[in-house]
């Protein structure tokens, strides 16, 4: 449906997008995920026609849309800060896209009213039609912005940080609701976010971006389970890193020695073992394959407990345990414990510096 072909964008000598390509399929919801400055919003704006690419092509349904202005692209764009028309009621905001049509295709007053009421109903704010945007809450404004974008029957729906400005609870409700809405309307959509949880929960496919390039493209499960680079691994959640040496298919570090068959051919190289906090287990110190660490601060976060530790080389480590397990362990600050990775991912050190891109890293299954 949307083809992005080698799109490049340069702002005053700064490469915001470096020849990126992506195909968004009909009915798919794609998340552009990345830190600020990674070019995700720029790409969204180029798809919308609000920004012009310095190179490459945008196609909608096979037709070249590169030269079309935003006005002619028939895209629904939802802005991060909603960009509602403050002097118009909610009803008039939603009706705007219908009323500015050329006379020949403009719906009648009655048709407009019916269409707008349908849309307000769809986003559950039918009772707020007469209000002005300043009288609404953030979540309600977001819904108005969405209804307004849907009014023009867009071929593509584009959302820039759609939940960025909302508080946690509203955010959660709204994104589930958006996912359901998307499924029921069968729209093709792209949204920008810097929140990995949001991307993984809502999108069919996630594009992880960094410094104007795509780091990885895949389904949420693929991205989470097989991150191709240390950047993606780090960006998708909290992470512990343990430095080690990779020698003939083994990762050897302070207190551990794991098999790493994918790296069979490497004689001796610096490597880094990444472990998610919930993939670490706490045991007695000095048992088999375990890293000795000192217990530091402990925090209870609802259903889980987070334990901060100091590793053998002074590195900060973090372990997440269930409350039951935490209670069972009865850890005390300053105590020496052993920590064992249940599941980890090994990257060679060059991959960290981006030198060896195709060295994708490999999963390590710890056997203790």
């Amino acid at each position, binding site marked *: 449906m949307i083809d992005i072909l080698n799109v490049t964008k340069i702002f005053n000598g700064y490469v915001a997008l470096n020849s990126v390509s992506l195909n968004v399929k009909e009915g798919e919801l794609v998340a552009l995920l990345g830190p600020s400055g990674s070019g995700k919003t720029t790409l969204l704006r180029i798809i*919308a*026609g*609000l920004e012009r690419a310095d190179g490459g092509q945008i196609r909608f349904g096979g037709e070249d849309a590169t030269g079309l*202005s*935003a*006005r002619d*692209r*028939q*895209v*629904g*764009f939802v*802005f991060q*800060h909603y*960009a*509602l*028309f*403050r*002097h*118009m009621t909610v009803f008039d905001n939603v009706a*705007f*896209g219908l009323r*500015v*049509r050329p006379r020949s295709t403009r719906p009648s007053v009655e048709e407009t009213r019916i269409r707008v009421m349908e849309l307000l109903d769809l986003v559950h704010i039918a009772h707020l039609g007469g209000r*002005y945007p*300043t*009288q609404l809450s953030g979540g309600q404004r977001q819904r108005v912005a969405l209804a*307004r*974008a849907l*009014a*023009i029957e867009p071929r593509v729906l584009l959302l820039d940080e759609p939940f960025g400005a909302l508080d946690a609870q509203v955010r959660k409700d709204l994104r589930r609701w958006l996912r359901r809405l998307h499924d029921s309307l069968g729209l093709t959509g792209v949204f920008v976010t810097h929140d990995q949880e949001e991307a993984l929960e809502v999108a069919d496919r996630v594009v992880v971006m960094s410094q104007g390039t795509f780091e990885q493209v895949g389904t949420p499960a693929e991205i989470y389970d097989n991150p191709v680079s240390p950047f993606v691994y780090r960006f998708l959640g909290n992470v512990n890193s343990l430095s080690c040496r990779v020698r003939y298919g083994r990762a050897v570090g302070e207190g551990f020695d794991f098999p790493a068959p994918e790296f069979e051919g490497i004689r001796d190289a610096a490597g880094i073992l990444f472990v998610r906090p919930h993939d670490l287990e706490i045991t007695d110190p000095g048992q088999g394959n375990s890293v000795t660490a000192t217990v530091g601060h402990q925090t209870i976060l609802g259903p889980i407990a987070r334990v901060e530790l100091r590793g053998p080389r002074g590195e900060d480590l973090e372990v997440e345990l269930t409350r039951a397990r935490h209670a069972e362990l009865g850890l005390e600050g300053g105590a020496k414990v052993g920590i064992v990775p249940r599941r980890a991912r090994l990257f060679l050190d060059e991959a960290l510096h981006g030198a060896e891109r195709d060295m994708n890293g490999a999963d390590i299954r710890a056997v203790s």
Partner: protein
Amino acid sequence: MSEKPPLAWKLQIRSPGVLPGFGPALGFTLLYLGLIVLIPLAGVFMKTAGMAWDDFLGKAFSPRALAAYRLSFGGALIAATINALAGVLVAWVLVRYRFPGKKVVEAAVDLPFALPTAVAGIALTAIYAPNGWIGSLLAPLGLKVAFTPLGVVVAMVFVGLPFVVRTVEPVLRDFETEVEEAAHSLGAGRGQIFWRVILPGILPAMLTGYALAFARALGEYGSVIFIAGNMPGVSEIAPLLIIIQLEQYDYAGATAIASVMLVAAFLLLILINSLQAWRRSRHEA
């Protein structure tokens, strides 16, 4: 708890917010306005009140005075309207475009504020007189500016220009480009974006500027009398008529005309302000 609410409760007209000192602040405001504005104006009415009713009507609504009101109010309304339209355009150019010499243009906008009005009057007269730069170009077309009511409007436009520019400019500068982009992506053309989105957004500021420019034009004396020619009944403005009465030691006559102007100006400004308040109430109620 207590049967009677404390006195402070009953006196509290509106909640004072986080900053203390509602009482003293309001008191000072009223005192200040009283000393600077209300007492001198009350003097005008006091003086007028000494006149017999017929005498007042005769002085305040003589044919010569009526013609002067017409010119003063009509001219001020026309000048403010011209300034509102041109001012928005100037503000637009200053906010949206970059061009060499922009700083100079910015400063030039404020010049009518700084210039002694007599200087402005003399300069305008020199330019618009039949033998002046612009006057000599207009003369063959049969257009006379200096020493006609048209000249009065020109002088009023001159002194009122900065008001609309300076009230609209910051609003336009704060106008989110996202809102325009939203309109654009919803299919609106440039004209539609301006008329339906931008103009309603700057209208309150434009109205404020309009009211200020109008008030300024109405009270303008220095620059107008040089270019007006001051023919009784034709190009004589009300403030000049007041001065003429004073020079003839007819204080009552002067205050009679002054009080009519005051009341009319006050009513017009209230009208403009309430128009704005009404607009604002529609978005923020």
